[in-house]
């Protein structure tokens, strides 16, 4: 890749915080270091991965509105986690986390368990159990 070919696509997800380093060749074919602000295929692939995440978050919100899921599900999806990953953070088992994603079990949780979940997601217990607020989120 020539150093003129190093992609500088304005449309990127780097928020101006990151300009990656590339190794590219100069006129004589020697390698030099060049910064790149963004590259389209990379942006597309990354956006695609985030679209999946956002889709799952929306799906979780829909379930909460329908009353078939607890706020826990929303926070799991929002933090791109899985029940087993949450379990290892909160020191419990994946199947229990899955159970707690149902309102029936979630309502009966002890304060201590809720605190562990809240710590994992870096929110307060009050935010965690506030299902009404999540229901207000628009589609």
């Amino acid at each position, binding site marked *: *890749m020539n150093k003129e070919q190093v992609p500088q696509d304005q449309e990127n*997800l*780097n*928020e101006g*915080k*990151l*300009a*990656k*380093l*590339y*190794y*590219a*060749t100069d006129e004589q*074919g*020697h*390698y030099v*270091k060049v*910064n790149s602000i963004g*590259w*389209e*295929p*990379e942006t*597309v*692939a*990354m*956006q*695609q*991965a*985030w679209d*999946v995440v956002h889709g799952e978050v929306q799906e979780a919100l829909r379930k909460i509105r329908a009353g078939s899921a607890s706020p826990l599900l929303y926070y799991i999806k929002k933090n*791109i*986690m*899985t029940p087993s*990953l949450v379990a*290892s*953070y909160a020191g419990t088992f994946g199947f229990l986390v899955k159970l707690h994603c149902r309102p029936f079990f979630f309502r009966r949780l002890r304060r201590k368990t809720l605190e562990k979940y809240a710590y994992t997601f870096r929110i307060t217990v009050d935010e965690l159990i506030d299902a009404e607020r999540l229901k207000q989120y628009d589609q």
Partner: protein
Amino acid sequence: MINNFTHKQSAHCESGVVSNLLRFHGMDFDEPMVFGIGSGLFFSYLPFIRINGIPAVGYRIWPGQIFKRFSKRIGIKIETRKFSKPSTAMDELDRKLDQGQPTGMLTSVFYLNYLPAAYRFHFNAHNIIVFGKQNGHYLVSDPVMEYTTEISYEDLMRARFAKGMPEPSGRMYYPVKLPGEYAVEKAIWKGISQTSDHMTRIPMPLVGAKGMKYLASRLRQWPQRLGNRKAILWLGNVIRMQEEIGTGGAGFRFIHAAFLEQAGIKLNNDRLLTLSKDLTKSGDELRDFAYYAGRVCKNRKSDTKSFTELGDLLEACSNREQRIFTELYEVSKSQ
């Protein structure tokens, strides 16, 4: 705070951390040198390992290996420590900083809030250096960033104790003994020979240049096998692994080509220079592959024809790399 620490941006986190740490200790190795001597280049397609249901694709050797191989070949003794308690790990870090020792560590990018939000997935093998503490914030030299940044105690602690695969467990490392004299030339040949050996001579279809061919043949069938939506997702993953944090496939090819050029000049070997140019071409082809794959993902249409063409592109790369690394292997053996 450690004053005489100089940060240099690099393309890949692991080789960048090693390069920056060693510069502090007075050994000047450019990033491509570290990458090449540590045999960082590789390819693997491991369909039986699924990450969120998508097969794992890697364009380089697994995390930690570059560091290990490089320090062994140059003769640096590194102390690596891991912890079970976060507070102990942070206290130990403070102690090291007080002693004036910049410390490398493994972190999860999910908690590194100086990175753009789009990059912050749960990727647990990102290397950074912490080189100081100011007003309760740690000063961080993240090799992929242009400048040094800082991070709060809480964020750093969470990043060091992220869960999932692989678990960093607060791992931190620093060189304890540097070699007085070392044989760079021998190390370079060792690096070249191991990379080319792994790229061409492992008798398994899933790794090395053969792995690329295998992925190409599987990729052609994705639209029929998986349906439109999944095929596009899987293809997106192939590019993401190519270009994710610390660059990827094509990027790694360019780093290695830069290494071959530096090695060729250092050892006065013209064949390495020619092969460096060939590898650059292979990197360009991989970029073309990513470019077309990006187009397919953007249009969200997985017609069989485009996937067949993508497979052909990848197979051409595979053939080229097979040839380059076979030649490199011969060159390194003839030394």
